[in-house]
């Protein structure tokens, strides 16, 4: 099958249209603007809608409208724009509307800069808007995954009737790699609950307001049950060379790519190092972390923030093993060399705790 060398941001748009997405509403922001630009080029040709909104606030509410009308819809932005969209994402989750939001993370807080960072983890993975809801979060670490996981995001969004975020960093959005696309496009299809302005859908109601405490509690519990189901059924991760790993590196996005190089270099030094790459950040691969605790002496989380992903790892490890942390921010990506130095230090610190081969630790 033929491959095409394209940017991550463009792969998202092509992946979306192939998944049957026919509406895009957005607002330009570096380093996500190529998403809106590619959408402006391809969506109208594919018989879809593209509109540059007056703000991210308007854009996410347009997404709400298109989702309520029953079409596959998406938007794309970066940190500051995602902050503005949080209200709308809360409404989408409350009204149980499916949509896909791509966040191509840049440096923050405030205006920060436009270089890659991973500081949006908390606001996206923990649900940055108000109320008891979660977004499902997919974290691509290659351009191929930008296309594939965007496609998956639409399936999950519809299955769970919930917003799904594709969370990538500026480098994954800006870099080019060969991508192989599916040969056939998925057909847009009708959703029974949508409000289309037709006789069949006249009695449908999209709402998130429930004034009676008992009614709202029942709704919140139903959402909760949905998220518990996602935690059982939707978890995805890549566990790479972890079977004999004493040090398990954990990272996502561009960092996971660097960590793969680190694993190779560490193993060349004789260190038993592996990589756990969460592909779903929510639901988080808790069971896999716990499984790895049996063998690993320590976890080492590497991220481009001052410590956000590491909290989920610590929650999953529950104190069974030490969880070390290495980070760069501001647009700096940890190099393989500096990370390897930290891996060596970590290995030196924890080597006496390493579990002898064939013997299970508690966990």
């Amino acid at each position: 099958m033929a491959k095409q060398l394209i940017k991550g941001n463009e792969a998202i748009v092509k992946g979306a249209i192939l998944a049957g997405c026919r509406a895009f509403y957005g607002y330009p922001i570096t380093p996500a603007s190529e998403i809106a630009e590619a959408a402006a080029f391809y969506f109208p040709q594919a018989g879809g809608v593209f509109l540059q909104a007056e703000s991210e606030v308007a854009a996410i509410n347009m997404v709400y409208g298109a989702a309520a009308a029953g079409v596959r819809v998406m938007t794309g932005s970066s940190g500051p724009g995602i902050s503005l969209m949080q209200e709308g994402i809360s409404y989408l989750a409350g009204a149980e509307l499916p949509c896909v939001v791509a966040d191509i993370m840049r440096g923050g807080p405030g205006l920060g800069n436009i270089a890659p960072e991973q500081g949006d983890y908390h606001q996206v993975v923990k649900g940055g808007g108000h109320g008891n809801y979660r977004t499902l979060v997919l974290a691509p670490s290659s351009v191929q995954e930008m296309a594939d996981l965007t496609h998956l995001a639409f399936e999950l969004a519809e299955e769970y009737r919930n917003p799904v975020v594709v969370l990538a960093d500026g480098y994954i959005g800006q870099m080019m790699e060969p991508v192989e696309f599916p040969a056939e496009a998925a057909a847009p299809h009708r959703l029974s609950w949508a409000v289309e302005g037709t006789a069949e859908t006249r009695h449908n109601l999209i709402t998130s307001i429930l004034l009676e405490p008992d009614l709202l509690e029942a709704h919140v519990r139903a959402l909760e049950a949905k998220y518990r189901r996602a935690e059982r059924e939707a978890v995805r991760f890549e566990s790479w060379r972890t079977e004999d790993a004493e040090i398990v590196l954990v990272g996502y996005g561009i960092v996971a790519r660097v960590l793969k190089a680190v694993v190779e270099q560490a193993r060349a030094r004789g260190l038993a190092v592996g990589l756990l790459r969460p592909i779903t950040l929510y639901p988080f691969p808790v069971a896999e972390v716990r499984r790895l605790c049996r063998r690993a002496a320590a976890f080492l989380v590497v991220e481009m923030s001052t410590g956000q992903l590491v909290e989920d790892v610590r929650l999953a490890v529950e104190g069974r093993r030490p969880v070390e942390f290495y980070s760069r921010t501001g647009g700096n990506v940890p190099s393989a060399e500096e990370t390897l130095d930290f891996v060596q230090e970590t290995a030196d610190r924890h080597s006496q705790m390493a579990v002898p081969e064939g013997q299970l630790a508690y966990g």
Partner: protein
Amino acid sequence: MASYTVAHGKAKCFYDHYERKADLQHQTHYCPGCGHGIVHKLIAGTIDALGIQDRTVLISPVGCSVFAYYYLDVGNIQVAHGRAPAVATAVKRSRPESIVISYQGDGDLAAIGTAEIVHAANRGENFTVIFINNAIYGMTGGQMAPTTLLGQKSTTTPFGRNVWNEGYPLKVCELLASLTGPVYIERVALGDNKQIMRAQRAVRRAIEIQTQGLGFSLVEILSPCPTIWKMNPVEAQHWVKEEMTKTFPLGVFRDRTKEAERRPAPAHAPPLAEIPRILGIANGASRRAAAAAPLNDAEPRDLRIKVAGFGGQGVLLLGQVLAEAGLDAGLEVSWLPSYGPEMRSGTSNCHVRLSARPIDSPLVSRPNVLLALNEPSLRKFLPTVEPGGWVFYNGTALAEDCHREDVQILVRPFTKMADELGETRAGNIVMLGALLESTGVLSEQHVNGALRRLVKSERWLEINRLALAAGREAARKGNGHEK
């Protein structure tokens, strides 16, 4: 008993019982004398008269009328405070046959949702806005609205609205009428029966305009809120007629129904089988059968290339040519730019990897090939080059303090050589020629293929052909490599 005829029955598109309400399902949640009940009736009557019940989608944002879906038997979407015009925009764009009504209050439309209403109106979106102006926040208990009259007391203007603190009441019709986009804008009132009849005509006109596909219509309705105003219904109606209309004069502010053009119908969706071609990913559109040919070298190599220079020197393009040519050659490739703001005088670099094996990190921190198009780039990245690696430098000589013995360095004035070909900007391709000649990586055929895809103009293809040849020549001549 005398028989009688019902002249004004319940509109068909009202529910008989309000089953979406928790209790008291035979009556509305609106207070006695509230204008919402009247306006709901005007809308319902219009929907019946135009026969559009199945097609109608009512958008209700925050305010007392958030529960309009209790009463109106149409498609209903409840939305966030102020955002109804954004939601309405998308519903109408994706479902052009639907009749979309955005029902908004004054706080919603004229305060928090100012941006959304202005831009929807300016785009001439083909939906109808019913704007209830009662000069107060009703649902939240009587705070100031953007339309609160000067001197009017509210819970957040306890001494009366003061122009020096809160400014003037916002006149939405006048504001929106300054835009070209809207087709119909009228302000009406519910101050007496005559005004209500006028309001009925305005609502019908506005929705008809939408059914005709003419574009944006808005009716502002001055409406009583007796409970919050602390008046009885009669006093409240009187206050609408006598006081509110002084600040908000009634009338038609915009009517270009005669000259407005029908909004063009959306283009037909192409057949599904056409989508891959449209996206440029159909077989044949993306061109290569990936034959896993190794690099030209006898031993397969893992090239970790850093290209660096000033913005405008073609740094990113040079990297892209290498990546495209590598992909053509059946290699695994990656290209990663150090992107920056689109501003002048920045520096630019990119990381390119070409490998026979899957690529772990696309970041190149220890390059084995450095293409330095200016001196700052050489100074910055020369120390990072792996021993035994290649360095190509666009200059005439190496400075005393910028030198290494353990790498192969080729120094040539590539930009100047491009100048001599008549195109300064081709310096990057001259350097590429030198790289190909010196290292033997990538065949001429794959590089030419990449250039043909990336460079659109015939003139530039010819310049690049000459540039590549000049670069190869330069690499062959003059002792080859300077150390």
